[in-house]
Every structure is written in structure tokens, then in C-alpha cells.
């Protein structure tokens, strides 16, 4: 586990807002020089705290109007069952997220489709034909937001 000081947290908050900010801009915002800001950002990347970037697009404007979360329960379990399922599901281009979970379902998936009939095609041809697939529950996303998480609460200057 990595201990961060208030300056690191301030830098993370700024980069979560906009990852394209330069080290000079970040440095000015948190009151340190550009080289010091650059070193801190680099350290946060090397420690794996900053794990890359997320591009957020207006998907409906690009023709992808439907996002669906699926809960999937496997009919047959066992190690090979999981591996076969995971290999097949990650090969589906419309599947953005695959998570192995514990609870009412075994996997949760996030799927982006052009519209409901496109989603129906993906569900019938790609999802229902996955090896070992059992019960499937679909929920269509209406709205979505990401929160800063504990970054905001950890540091109160």
C-alpha cells in the first residue's frame, strides 16, 4: 500500500478531472514547480496509482445509444468452465467490461450497442451462445456518473 501526502491527492484530483493537464499546469495549481510536479506524477504512475486514462465520449452522438449491464450465472461451474467462458466473452467486441463476482451472479458485463435491436442481436447471437451460460439478467442504463471517491474525503486542507 502506498502512502500519499495532501499534494499527491491534490494532483490526483486534478488528473482525474483532466488527464491532459501538463506538469507545469499541475505544479502551478498545487503550488510546486514543474519538475517537482513531473516527478510526483511519474511516481504515481510507477506505483500503479494512476493506472492509465479513461476517454469519455458522448456515445449516443456517435451512434451507440444503448448501454446494458448484464448479470450472468453459469449453468456449470468448475475451473475449465470459467476459463472457457472468460475466453469467449472477452472476444465479443461489444463487451466493454467483464468482472468475475461473488453473489447472485458469477459475472457482470457491460455492453454497448447501437440500439435495442442491436442489443437483442448481441444477446441472442453472442451472449446466449457463450459456453456454460445459465441465467442472464439485463438492465438498460438510463444515466451514469463517476464520483471522485475517497480522494475528496481524504484530504481536507
Amino acid at each position, binding site marked *: *500500500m502506498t502512502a500519499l501526502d495532501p499534494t499527491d491527492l491534490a494532483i490526483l484530483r486534478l488528473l*482525474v478531472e483532466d488527464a491532459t493537464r501538463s506538469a507545469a499546469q499541475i505544479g502551478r495549481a498545487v503550488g510546486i514547480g514543474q519538475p517537482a510536479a513531473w516527478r510526483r506524477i511519474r511516481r504515481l504512475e510507477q506505483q500503479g496509482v494512476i493506472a492509465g486514462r479513461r*476517454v*469519455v465520449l458522448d456515445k449516443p452522438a456517435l451512434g451507440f445509444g444503448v448501454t446494458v449491464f448484464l448479470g450472468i450465472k453459469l449453468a456449470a461451474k468448475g475451473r475449465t468452465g470459467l476459463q472457457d467462458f472468460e475466453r469467449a466473452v472477452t472476444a465479443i467486441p461489444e463487451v466493454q467490461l467483464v468482472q468475475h*463476482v461473488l453473489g447472485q451472479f458469477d459475472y457482470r458485463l457491460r455492453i454497448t450497442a447501437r440500439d435495442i435491436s442491436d442489443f437483442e442481436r448481441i444477446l441472442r447471437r453472442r451472449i446466449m451462445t457463450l459456453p456454460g451460460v445459465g441465467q442472464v439478467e439485463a438492465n438498460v*442504463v438510463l444515466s451514469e456518473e463517476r464520483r471522485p471517491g475517497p480522494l475528496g474525503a481524504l484530504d481536507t486542507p
Partner: protein
Amino acid sequence: MIFMPDSTDRRILRQLLGDPSASNAQLAERAGVTGASLWRRMERMREAGVLKGIHARIDWRALGWEVEVSLRFTLDKTDPRAFDNFLAALREVPEVIEIQSFLGSVDWRATVIARDMAHWQQVYRDRILTLPHIAELDALMLVSTISDREDLPL
């Protein structure tokens, strides 16, 4: 004004989604446009709201937040303000990193993180079970993320 991204814009977005950490110079080269043209097109897509933002991804596990749970809520909709009240209260929980509303058997979903199982129990009892208008609640505990990619078949 409605902005329609053309095939060059889509090519730029495809390259950006494929490697969000690429520099503008790299993106321009891969998309086959000049640096100036890339900059102009990215600005236009930002202004039009097609490109909403490029954000740093935080790995909470690297910061010692070991537990991640997907909580699914069904609300008691007898109170017309249930949705608004619930969302406002959920946003106040600092351990919540993602919120979605749904059309379906589930009304809301939130991703909640905690430092360990003892902390999770505390967050669950003190911050989640106290949220207003909950009719049903179930939890999926994350074992592992097999794949997480933002790319679209553009």
C-alpha cells in the same frame, strides 16, 4: 448546432480509445492527419461535447482499497421524491466511485470501495443501509476484473 463527426474524426477517436495515453503527435501520425488538424478536430469535438473528457484512472487497490462491491438497489417508489432523495444521499457517500440508474428490475447501481472487510462492514451498515427509500438491495463482490476497455466499434 448539431456536430456530426466525420470519418477522420472517428479515426482519431478510434486511435485515442485504443491508446488514451498517446501524445498528440503520436495520435496525429496514427490517424494520418497533421498535428494542427488533430488539435483543431479534438477542440471541435470537445466543444461539441462528443469528447467529454480524458480522465486519469485510479487503481484503488494500489492505494490500499482492497474491497470493491457492486450494489444494486430497488427503491420503494411510493414517494415521488424517492429517486431524487436517494441519488442525493448516495452522492454524499465518499466510498461510492460510480453510479448508474437503470430501466429494468434494478433502479440504481453503485460501485462502492472499502479498505478491507471490516471497513466494508462499517460502510455498509453506517452509510448504505441508512440510505432513504431502499426496498431491495443486493451485493456482488468483485473477485477480479477480466477485461475493462472503453473502445467502441466506431
